[in-house]
């Protein structure tokens, strides 16, 4: 067998590639290589055997749990904002916890468990999904315990990969998992509300910016840009810790960090530069860019609220929803078409009107913020309908894309 270390580019041979150690051993026939197990820690092999049925079933169960948490969490939000009558007490009371831990905790953990391919990794998404169900059933202590377990398992998945090779983005995402655990602990011991809110928000923010930082390594970043990212992400994590003792100072630090990260993403991430790209790439670029603008809006609203009205709740509702709805859901709308093939083996065909969901969500969020400032309950209820319409529109676009691909038989 001829074994040739591949030169990365004929025009520019890579010293790093040339110096890179040879793979540990010639690839063994895949039939002898297990898809899961210790051998995959440093070298992951493509398995020709299907993923074990039990594991696929567990993954599907986690996804179903995330969808159920999403339905309940969205219903709770729509009841709070006045779009739906407040008939269901639990989703109404636990809207935020269900959305962050039950929905995104499950989806993020599932993504990592599928990627790292450790059997025990399924504990993270299972625990996150089950925590939401426990909360809906009134088992509050059980819910906190399950989410703490899920956060610990997610952190262990990150540690597993960071032990193989340390990466900055992996460290930032691991800090996000720690923030999830801290936020859950804060909720369990009745720490100041800002401690749990910031912990949960930091879980999502650090996971997202960690992923974007990973992709930004392809683009040349100066020392200042690298330092700015590290300082901003570090400040966000510091706010999570400080919130236990000094919620007001932590809130100011948090929104300042969000603002700095938004500016960084708008200036350094390559998504805004691909705004006019065709098909899904353009969709992703537009959704992400709109999300970064929402992160900036959240930071501005949060800082303005905290500075102008020191007696207001630690985290203003408009700023919080600009962050969790405007920013986070724009990331979901942007990443879903490229993540579905990896997570579910489904490759949606391009659907141009999927982008409309991003704009319907943005328009309804503007209406929500204006109606809140104007004290106009009917406007807020209408905005809630717009949020739900955006989610349904995007779900319909993805299903349409999948159906088109199926019809083409590809």
């Amino acid at each position, binding site marked *: 067998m001829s074994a040739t270390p591949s030169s990365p580019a004929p025009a520019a041979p890579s010293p790093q590639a040339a110096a890179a150690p040879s793979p540990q051993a010639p690839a063994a026939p895949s039939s002898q290589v297990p898809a899961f197990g210790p051998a995959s820690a440093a070298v992951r*092999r*493509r398995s020709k055997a299907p993923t074990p049925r039990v594991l696929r079933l567990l993954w599907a169960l986690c996804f179903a749990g995330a969808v159920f948490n999403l339905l309940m969490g969205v219903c709770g939000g729509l009841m709070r904002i006045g779009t739906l009558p407040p008939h269901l007490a639990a989703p109404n009371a636990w809207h935020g916890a269900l959305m962050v831990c039950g929905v995104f905790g499950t989806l993020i953990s599932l993504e990592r468990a599928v990627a790292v391919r450790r059997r025990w990794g399924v504990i993270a998404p299972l625990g996150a999904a089950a925590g939401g169900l426990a909360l809906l059933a009134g088992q509050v202590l059980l819910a906190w315990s399950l989410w703490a377990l899920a956060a610990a398992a997610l952190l262990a998945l990150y540690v597993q990969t960071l032990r193989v*090779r340390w*990466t900055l983005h992996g460290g930032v995402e691991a800090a996000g998992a720690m923030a999830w655990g801290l936020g859950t602990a804060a909720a369990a011991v009745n720490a100041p509300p800002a401690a749990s809110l910031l912990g949960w928000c930091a879980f999502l923010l650090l996971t997202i910016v960690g992923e974007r930082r990973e992709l930004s390594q392809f683009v040349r970043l100066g020392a200042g840009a690298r330092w700015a990212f590290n300082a901003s992400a570090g400040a966000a994590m510091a706010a999570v810790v400080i919130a236990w003792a000094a919620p007001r100072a932590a809130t100011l630090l948090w929104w300042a960090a969000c603002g700095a990260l938004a500016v960084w993403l708008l200036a350094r991430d390559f998504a805004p530069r691909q705004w006019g790209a065709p098909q899904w790439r353009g969709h992703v670029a537009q959704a992400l860019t709109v999300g970064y603008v929402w992160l900036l809006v959240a930071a501005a609203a949060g800082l303005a609220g905290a500075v102008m009205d020191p007696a207001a709740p630690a985290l203003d509702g408009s700023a919080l929803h600009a962050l969790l709805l405007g920013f986070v859901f724009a990331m979901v709308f942007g990443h879903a078409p*490229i993540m579905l093939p*990896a997570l579910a083996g489904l490759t949606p065909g391009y659907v141009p009107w999927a982008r409309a969901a991003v704009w319907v969500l943005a328009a309804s969020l503007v209406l929500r913020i204006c109606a809140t400032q104007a004290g106009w309950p009917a406007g807020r209820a209408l905005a809630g309908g717009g949020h739900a319409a955006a989610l349904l529109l995007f779900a319909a676009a993805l299903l349409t894309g999948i159906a088109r691909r199926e019809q083409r038989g590809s």
Partner: protein
Amino acid sequence: MTETEVRDALRGVIDPEIGESIVDLGLIERIEIDDAATPPRVALTLIMTSATCPMTDVIMDDAAAAIEKRWPTHDVDIAADLTIPWSPQRMTTDLRIRFGW
């Protein structure tokens, strides 16, 4: 089958998050070809920038499909070595210029 031919076959495999070819991005670490084996065999080692991104499996599947399409009788093995860091020197000159290096 030569290494150059395999690289050409892989040029159409796109990293879904970057929208660029895995060859141009420098994600190919090693190509091993054994034409004397029965069936003939090719083993491809990739590197990845993240060990926690499920996109690794999609890229490995796409790479296998690209090779199998051109050499249907070959046995194709794909692995991703997660210990090797990516560096900008691995990219093609054109892509480095486009990405501001």
